[in-house]
Structure formats: C-alpha cells, structure tokens
C-alpha cells in the first residue's frame, strides 16, 4: 500500500449529491477527494426520471418543500442552461379519477405561484377536444386536462459536470473505487481505505469524511460505528428509444398513484414504481409484474402504449429517510445532514434522503456543516456559478456541424452533452466517423470521453455520451466503440472483446423484462450482429 494522500475532505459517493458536495467544497478552496465505487451517477441518480422538478405533489404535505425545491430547481436551470430542456405535461382527467378537473386545476393554480422561481410557464386548461388536438393519442374518454411544465436533464451529464468542475478546482475524483473501511483514531474518523479500479488498496487521510452514498449510506455509516436508518424504495422505468409524444403525460395507476410518461430529448421514460426494498442494493432486478403495472396505467390514458417497442428498463433505489407506517408514496423526499460527533465518530458527516432536484441545496448545506467543523469561512457560490459548458450560449448546431464535417443533428446532440464546450470536444480527434448512428456519436467524442471523462468501460460510455442508448440498443455500435475506447486505453484484442461481452450481458439484464411483448426482431438482429459475444 502506498503512503496515504492527505485532503481536507473525503466525499464517499459519486451520485449527484456527492459530486455536488465535491464541487461546492472545491469552489470554497478546500482540497477534496471524491470516491465512487461504480461510475459517476451510475446508481440512484442515473435511474431517476431525469427531471429537475418542483414537486407539486408536496403541496398536499408541505408547501415549504415545494418552495425550496422549486427555488433550487431554478438555480440548477440557470447554472446548467445548456443541459436542460422544457418538459410539458398533459395531465388528462378521466371519469372516476381520484381528482376531478377542478381540483387538478386548483393544484396547478397554486403551483403556478412557484413556477417563476424555476423560470417555468403557468399551466393551461384544455377541454377534451383541445387535449386531443394537442395529443391525438390520448383516450377519447377524457373529460379535460391541465398542463404543467418541468425541466428535463441528463443526470449522468449533470453529475459529470459537477465532477469536472470539482477537478478543475483542485479536487481528486476517482470512479470505480470502492471504500472498504474508515481509518479511525480513537473517537475520530481520520480517513478512508479504498480499493482502486486496478484492485490496489490505498489509504487517504481527511479532516472530514462525508458519507453521500445514497442508499448505501447505512453501509458506510456502519464502518464508522454509526447507525443511519433509511427506508429504501425501489423504482423502475420503462425506456422507449423515441419520443412517443412531444408532450409528457401523467396517468393514475390502479392503486391511485401518479405515474409519468416523460418525453426527453430522444427517448421516453415511463415510470415509476415505489416499493419498499430489502434486497441487495448492488443487484436490483426489474420484474415483469412491475412492467405490467406501469403499462396497465398508461393504457387507460394512452391506449396505443403497448404497440410501442421499449428498448430497456432502468431500476434504482431511493435513499428515503426512515419512517414507520406510511405508504411508500407518502414518504417525504426531505433530507438530513447528520454530524456523527455525538455518535463517537468526530469528523464523519452523513447526508441522507433528498432528491435530484434539490441536490445543489443538499450539497450547500452539507458543505456548510463541513466548513463549520473545519473553521473554514468561504461562501457557497454554486447557485450562480455556471457548470462547465454552460458559461455561454451554444452556437447554431448547423454552423458547428458544417465547420466540423458532421451533420447538424450530430452537432446538436454533442451540444446537449457538452454545451458551449462542444467545439472543443472535437479538437482532440478530428474524426467525424459515426460510431453510434442512433444517438449519434462521433469517434472524436468517444475519444474525448476516454481521454478526459474517465470512461473506463462501455457502460461508462453509455452514461457519459449515450452509447447504445438508441433503438438498436448497441447492435450496430458496441464492437466499434470497444475498438475506439480500447485503442485509447491500450486494451488488447481480447480485452476489447471482453468489454463488449460485458456490456451486452449488462444490457440484456435491463432488456429481458420487456422483451415478452415486442422487440424480438431487434433482439434477433442484435444476437446476429454480436454473435459469439454471448458465449
């Protein structure tokens, strides 16, 4: 084991909260080590609904949560302006729905008071005929609808933008690095022991260790002898590789829960479930029952949903704060910053609970606690300082495409991932060769991801640039991508083959629960294209 490195703060967990804390503390001038056992945003963050939303459902429980959430969503929309896009919901009201149209509109009228905080427009109310003009796929049985606006974001890019900014302000950030223990000195936590991506054990000393491990918070807390109780809740989404509609749609499930079909840049997420989860956090499966539960609800408002071919499912576990008795859906998305000094673990701080839309605020408040412990006085600047690639407006996509020898569509997609830095991404390698045609992704972007964005596996490339996220689910691009990334990372021919095989196996796990319906033509093509990888 090499000599321990020394830092002011070590943050455990590279989801959006941990990355946000690392950025916040780095910008305040502290030296930070950020450790993530998998890839950036590969856990709960990446399996979210990809939305920065204000939380209208909290209006029933606590308006203050809605105000805080909306206000912080507004800050995120400002600092990530090139990464976010408007998501407009049609909320159809059917006979026998839990809420009639007047109650739904009342909720939206109240929500409109908060919408300006996140630069969103007020709601509109539509008659049944108008709703069908806006979205002809809705059921003709509807009796009216209201609309609501939220913001969409690629959470993987959001996490990495935070990591990237932390690094550029002096932080050290390591993915595929698992914390295996804490270093203690009597009643103090003074560092962490971790296993790196190469399997080597290392030690790092830190004046404060922050536990931002999401649903893994209790596991890390136990290493410090502290007990943090969560009520983990599993949520799944069905992923369609197209926008099914330009409008997002809300539906009521058989048990009265609100479900969402969310139209993102080039795909649709349909979800989500919310069930207590007691299993292995590193191996969360999607069940066919869960898929049926979602489809049943949407079939009622959007009858043709079963004729669309999903391409995969996602699943994640929310780190909800513990509460006895309540139904999962009624649990708060509130969060708590815990200083474990009173548990006999001085120098150890946990952030638990919360949600993507409030990540910046959670990071700010956790960083405030850390700074107080260190006696460090520096203000938080993350509410106003743009994330990398969001400092300036993007140039017209057609212009970037013409200059770089790629299509305008490829340039536009590049800009959604890299914002105003899109042109710089193409400088490393001039190759405009398309590696993934569905997304689309050029060889130059993949080279950049391997050189500068800590891509170490094909699954990392899926998260960082959307490799194999399109309709063909990787059938046409996995081997080409393994060649490009392998070339950058000095993989042998067999390592490239193994990387492709590992990716295909992982992708199959997310695809299997939805293949019972349609998609076998796609699967046959994939099997043929990647023959040999499954052996």
């Amino acid at each position, binding site marked *: 084991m090499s000599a321990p490195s020394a830092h002011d703060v070590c943050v455990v967990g590279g989801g959006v909260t941990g990355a946000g804390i690392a950025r916040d503390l780095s910008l305040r001038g502290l030296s930070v080590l950020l450790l993530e056992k998998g890839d950036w945003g590969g856990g709960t963050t990446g399996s979210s609904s990809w939305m920065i939303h204000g939380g209208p459902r909290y*209006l*029933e*429980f*606590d*308006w*203050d949560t809605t105000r805080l959430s909306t206000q912080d969503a507004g800050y995120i929309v400002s600092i990530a302006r090139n990464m976010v*896009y*408007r998501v*407009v919901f049609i909320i159809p009201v059917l006979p026998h729905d839990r809420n009639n149209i*007047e*109650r739904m509109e*009342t*909720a939206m*009228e*109240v929500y409109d008071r908060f919408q300006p905080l996140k630069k969103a*427009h007020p709601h*509109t*109310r*539509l*008659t049944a005929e*108008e709703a069908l*003009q*806006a*979205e*002809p*796929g809705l059921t003709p049985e509807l009796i009216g609808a209201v*609309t609501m606006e939220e913001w969409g974001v690629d959470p993987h890019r959001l996490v990495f933008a935070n990591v990237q900014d932390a690094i550029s302000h002096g932080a050290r950030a390591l993915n595929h690095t698992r914390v295996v223990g804490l270093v203690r000195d009597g009643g103090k936590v003074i560092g962490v022991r971790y296993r790196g991506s190469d399997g080597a054990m290392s030690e790092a000393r830190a004046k404060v260790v922050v536990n931002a491990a999401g649903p893994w918070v209790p596991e890390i807390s136990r290493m410090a002898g502290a007990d943090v109780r969560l009520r983990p809740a599993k949520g799944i989404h069905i992923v369609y*590789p*197209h*926008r*099914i509609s*330009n*409008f997002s749609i809300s539906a009521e499930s058989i048990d009265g829960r609100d479900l969402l079909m969310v*139209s993102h*840049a*080039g795909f649709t997420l349909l979800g989500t479930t919310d069930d207590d989860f007691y299993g292995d956090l590193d191996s969360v499966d999607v069940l066919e029952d869960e898929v049926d539960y979602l489809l049943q609800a949407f079939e009622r408002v959007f009858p*043709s949903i079963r*004729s*669309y*071919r999903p391409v995969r499912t996602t699943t994640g576990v929310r780190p909800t704060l513990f509460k006895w008795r309540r139904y999962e859906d009624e649990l708060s998305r509130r969060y708590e910053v815990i200083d474990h000094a009173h548990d006999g673990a001085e120098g150890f701080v946990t952030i638990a609970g919360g949600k993507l839309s409030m990540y910046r605020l959670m990071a700010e408040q956790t960083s405030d606690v850390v700074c107080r412990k260190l006696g460090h006085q520096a203000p938080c600047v993350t509410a106003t300082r743009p994330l990398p690639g969001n400092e300036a407006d993007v140039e*017209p*996509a*057609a212009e970037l*495409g*013409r200059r770089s020898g790629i*299509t*305008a*569509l490829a340039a*536009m997609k590049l800009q959604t991932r890299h914002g105003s830095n899109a042109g710089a991404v193409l400088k490393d390698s001039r190759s405009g060769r398309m590696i993934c*045609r*569905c*997304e*689309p992704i050029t060889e130059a972007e993949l080279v950049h991801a391997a050189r500068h964005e800590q891509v170490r596996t094909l699954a990392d490339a899926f998260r960082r640039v959307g490799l194999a996220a*399109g*309709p*063909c689910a990787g*059938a*046409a691009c996995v081997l080409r991508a393994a060649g490009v990334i392998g070339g950058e990372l000095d993989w042998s021919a067999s390592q490239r083959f193994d990387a492709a095989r590992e990716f295909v196996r992982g992708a199959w796990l997310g695809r299997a629960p939805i293949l019972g319906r349609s998609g076998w*033509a796609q699967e046959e*093509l994939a099997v043929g294209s990647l023959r040999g990888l499954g052996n």
Partner: protein
Amino acid sequence: MARADSLAKLAFAYGVHLTRRRLTRPRSQLATLLETYAADGIRPLLPEERARHAQLIGCINCGLCALAAGRVGKVRLPDLASSYMRLYARLGEAASDVDGDSPDLEAAAAACPVGVPLGEVAAIVRRLTAG
C-alpha cells in the same frame, strides 16, 4: 402541522377557484399552450401521424434500406428512421441535413424487414424540420 396547514390552504384555493369559474367565462387556452412552447419545438403530431406512429418509429437500424436506396439529403436512410425520428422537439435545427434529393423510398421500404414506411418517415421528418 405542515400537512394540516397545506390542506387548509389548498381548500381555500379550491374555494377561490370554484368562485372564479362561476364568475368568468372559460376561454380556449390551446393556442396559448402551442404558442408558448413553439420555440421549444413542442408541437402536436397530426392525427394521421399519431395513428401510424408506432410503425413509423419501428426501425431496428439493420441498414438494409441504405443498400436499397441511399440518402435523403445528407442523411443515410437508416439514420432518418432510427435517429431523426427519435427527436422531434429540436429537429428544426437540423433542417440543412435533409435538404436535397430523395432516393427511391418505395424500394427502400420494400427492403425493410420490420415494415417501416420510409416515405412517410421522410415526410414527417421534413415537416418537423421545416418548423
């Protein structure tokens, strides 16, 4: 306490809402909705496009149509169906990609193993890129 307070405020808002609905004549808000989001490219599909939509986006990117026919403007046919058809909201920014000649789309559609109607796909992409 927060819950009771929230429900009370919602109940008051509900009363105000019902009163206002009784006193004012409802106006159509569809035009407002569409104008508000036109700049974001959020526009409805036409009813006939909606009816055929699942078929229109059924491409599995096998590439056979490219062998049969070629390109629409700068765009290879499989990309038109598998990539451009994914993204409606900002297609206006990619209008220059589909400017130019169309190949024999009927021949291309005949080669498609999952029956994607490529002529209709080209028409809808052109409609959406035109804004």
